[in-house]
């Protein structure tokens, strides 16, 4: 029998999770935008719009300490961060395009080096996904093989229903446990009518064909055509649920400091700047090419997956109006 | 007088004590000239003495407060403040100057007069109004009976231009504003040496001997330079040169017979103001013969 949860109980769920010592992260309105943020109370949950940043930061924060050091009279003392100490977390309200990105990222973070910072967070996090009832002209999840109802990456999936509240589908043990341990907040129903979901409009992409073209066209005038105007900022990569490049830096003074891992972006001119002064990607089109190649070819070559979930954030927020969907459509044309 | 707003130019007006007493003709002729030139003039209600030359020698705060209060009264009447008497002009300007640069004094004065001092109110001498605000060109245009052939010694006295930072009227040691006005109305200013010398001022009361010497030099210098008459802008100068002229003649044995006009009397004559409204009859040294000779009466 499918379960449902009312709007109000969803918030009570958050409150009781927090009370139990679980960290709850969900969309929260902050100023003019919505972000996936730690919630202090269930009321803070705001599911009205797609958060500006993706949910990847739940597993892969903007910036995190990976060790710290102090120089004392006896020499340098290094303190490691213990990833096992990360708190139990529930990510609530993750949209399909955000939830689906997490399993894609598992591949790269557990490939040869196991990034425990990422993986521990993944292990300790239960993802409650949420189906989309609206889409705008930047959304293109269905063009890359997902859909507004796709529950990939979610442990528990919510679909809004006409009567208010949500239909809950437990997809993993984590999801089931969450329901059973808060059973009083869920109801059993047979007659809930899901709201109609909004499939993004536009051309379906043939990812295979696109990859085929990319395999052949490392050198192509199209890159200059598309990306000459690229300003070289990192907003596309930083808003993207799947981009996962990071840099590591030591910050502090001679006496004490931290080693920190933080987001990096292949659009930055300094991204491939060598100490010698040589930069193999010396112009913006080469950097943009890498972005496309990485998402639709290299990742596929290596892991058989596409590094794009069609959330459309990079389209919406590119300051110079570069539209990855349009680029892919162009490539698909050949 | 007609309401101020009828005129393009209009002023508040501080006549000062002399102009209501010994220098009535200066007041009368000022009003006559302004009326003829269609310049509005509204007397400041309840004005009182500026303190003149004595006050600041005795008590600076008092002298400043007197002018400050007058300025404050003037502040209630629209238009820049027109002043005829050189001493009043000097005192009012000095007060503004002093209080602008000295906050402590300003606060003392404000306490004394129980209100703010309108330091921004512009105080203007008639000369400035005629030569600058009204304009020499327009003045020339308003002339009906040019003072052709009348050789005039323009006498500034001490106060009108000095100290330079206070009146800001003209070059303090070599002014030309009076000459310019006279040229505009057709008169002939003479070049002479004693334009800015002191006439003796209020020693006229305490040590008349000083006047006999100083004013004599002025009269002699004007006469030597070929002047027919002297033109002044100060009641006290006028008194010393006109009223005491006979006494000076007796003392020195030199006869001058030199009429001493106020600037407004001469400008008024030229601009067609009736001689009856210029107070010419109050002059001790009668100008009648001279004016008739020059066909100005």
């Amino acid at each position, binding site marked *: 029998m499918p379960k449902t949860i009312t709007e109000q109980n969803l918030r009570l769920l958050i409150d009781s999770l927090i009370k139990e010592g679980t960290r709850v992260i969900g969309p929260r309105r902050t100023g003019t935008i919505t972000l996936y943020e730690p919630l202090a109370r269930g009321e803070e949950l705001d599911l009205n719009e797609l958060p500006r940043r993706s949910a990847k930061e739940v597993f892969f924060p*903007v910036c995190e300490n990976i060790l710290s050091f102090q120089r004392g009279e006896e020499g340098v003392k290094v303190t490691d961060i213990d990833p096992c100490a990360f708190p139990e977390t529930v990510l609530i309200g993750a949209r399909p395009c955000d939830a689906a990105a997490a399993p894609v990222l598992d591949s790269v973070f557990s490939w040869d080096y196991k990034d425990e910072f990422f993986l521990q967070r993944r292990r300790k996090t239960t993802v409650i996904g949420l189906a989309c009832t609206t889409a705008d002209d930047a959304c293109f999840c269905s063009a890359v093989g997902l859909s507004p109802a796709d529950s990939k990456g979610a442990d528990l999936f919510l679909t809004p229903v006409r009567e208010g509240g949500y239909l809950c589908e437990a997809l993993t043990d984590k999801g089931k446990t969450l329901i059973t341990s808060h059973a009083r907040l869920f109801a059993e129903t047979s007659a809930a009518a899901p709201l109609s979901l909004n499939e993004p409009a536009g051309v379906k992409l043939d990812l295979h064909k696109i990859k085929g073209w990319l395999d052949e066209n490392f050198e192509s005038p199209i890159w200059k055509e598309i990306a000459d105007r690229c300003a070289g900022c990192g907003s596309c990569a930083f808003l993207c649920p799947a981009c996962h490049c990071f840099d590591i830096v030591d910050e502090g003074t001679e006496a004490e400091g931290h080693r920190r891992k933080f987001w990096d972006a292949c659009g930055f001119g300094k991204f491939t700047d060598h100490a010698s002064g040589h930069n193999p990607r010396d112009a913006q089109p080469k950097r943009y090419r890498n972005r496309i190649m990485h998402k639709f070819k290299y990742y596929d070559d290596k892991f058989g997956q596409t590094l794009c979930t069609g959330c459309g954030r990079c389209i919406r927020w590119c300051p110079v109006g570069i539209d990855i969907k349009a680029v892919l459509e162009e490539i698909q044309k050949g | 007088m007609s309401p101020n707003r009828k005129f393009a130019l209009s002023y508040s007006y501080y006549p000062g004590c002399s102009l209501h007493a010994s220098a009535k003709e200066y007041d009368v002729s000022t009003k006559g000239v302004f009326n003829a030139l269609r310049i509005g003039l509204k007397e400041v209600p309840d004005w009182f003495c500026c303190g003149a030359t004595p006050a600041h020698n005795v008590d600076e705060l008092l002298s400043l407060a007197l002018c400050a209060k007058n300025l404050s009264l003037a502040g209630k009447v629209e238009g820049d403040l027109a002043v005829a008497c050189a001493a009043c002009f000097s005192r009012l300007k000095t007060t503004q100057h002093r209080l602008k640069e000295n906050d402590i004094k300003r606060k003392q004065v404000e306490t004394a007069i129980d209100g703010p001092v309108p330091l921004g109110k512009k105080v203007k001498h008639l000369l400035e109004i005629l030569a600058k605000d009204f304009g020499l060109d327009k003045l020339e245009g308003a002339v009906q009976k040019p003072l052709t052939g009348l050789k005039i010694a323009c006498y500034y006295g001490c106060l009108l231009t000095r100290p330079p930072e206070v009146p800001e009227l003209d070059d303090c040691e070599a002014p030309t504003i009076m000459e310019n006005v006279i040229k505009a109305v057709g008169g002939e200013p003479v070049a002479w040496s004693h334009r800015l010398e002191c006439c003796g001022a209020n020693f006229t009361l305490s040590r008349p001997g000083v006047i006999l010497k100083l004013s004599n030099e002025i009269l002699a210098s004007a006469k030597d330079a070929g002047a027919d008459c002297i033109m002044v802008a100060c009641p006290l100068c006028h008194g010393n040169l006109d009223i005491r002229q006979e006494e000076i003649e007796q003392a020195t044995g030199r006869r001058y017979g030199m009429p001493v006009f106020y600037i407004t009397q001469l400008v008024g004559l030229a601009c067609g103001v009736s001689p009856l409204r210029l107070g010419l009859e109050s002059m001790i040294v009668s100008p009648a013969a001279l004016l008739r000779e020059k066909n100005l009466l």
Partner: protein
Amino acid sequence: MKHDFEPKIVAFVCTWCTYAGADLAGTSRMQYPANVRVLKFPCTGRIDPVFILKAFQKGADGVLVSGCHPGDCHYMAGNFHARRRFAAFRKLLEFVGVDLARLEFSWVSAAEGGKWVEVVTDLTERIRTMGPLAEFKELETEEHWSGRLETAELKEAYNNI
């Protein structure tokens, strides 16, 4: 006399005037609070606003910038440029919410040992009463959880984590 709070004051001074003025205070055996740490520059013209920011970030409770009186600059115009730069910078700091009472500028000549003492003493005493500059220190240690600052509310919700 001991105080509850001893602020850390950083002074950026030019070598020709203020540093020499502070030397004079020394040779004259004048006394002033020991809170100030003096960093020497050739000229106030060399002092970058970033240094002031850095000093605050690294724990200064107050910053003093001092150089030659206008017209006395050893390099003719360095202090004139500095004057404009700091006039602008303090407006910026004020706008982001830094209390300008913590940032002092002065002209202290090589002959003004007394003025140096006065400036340093006044600033030290003022900052003593103001207490530590918490804002920058908080920032330095603050980690944000996914963009959300660790507010009291959040702390309370998760005090057991």
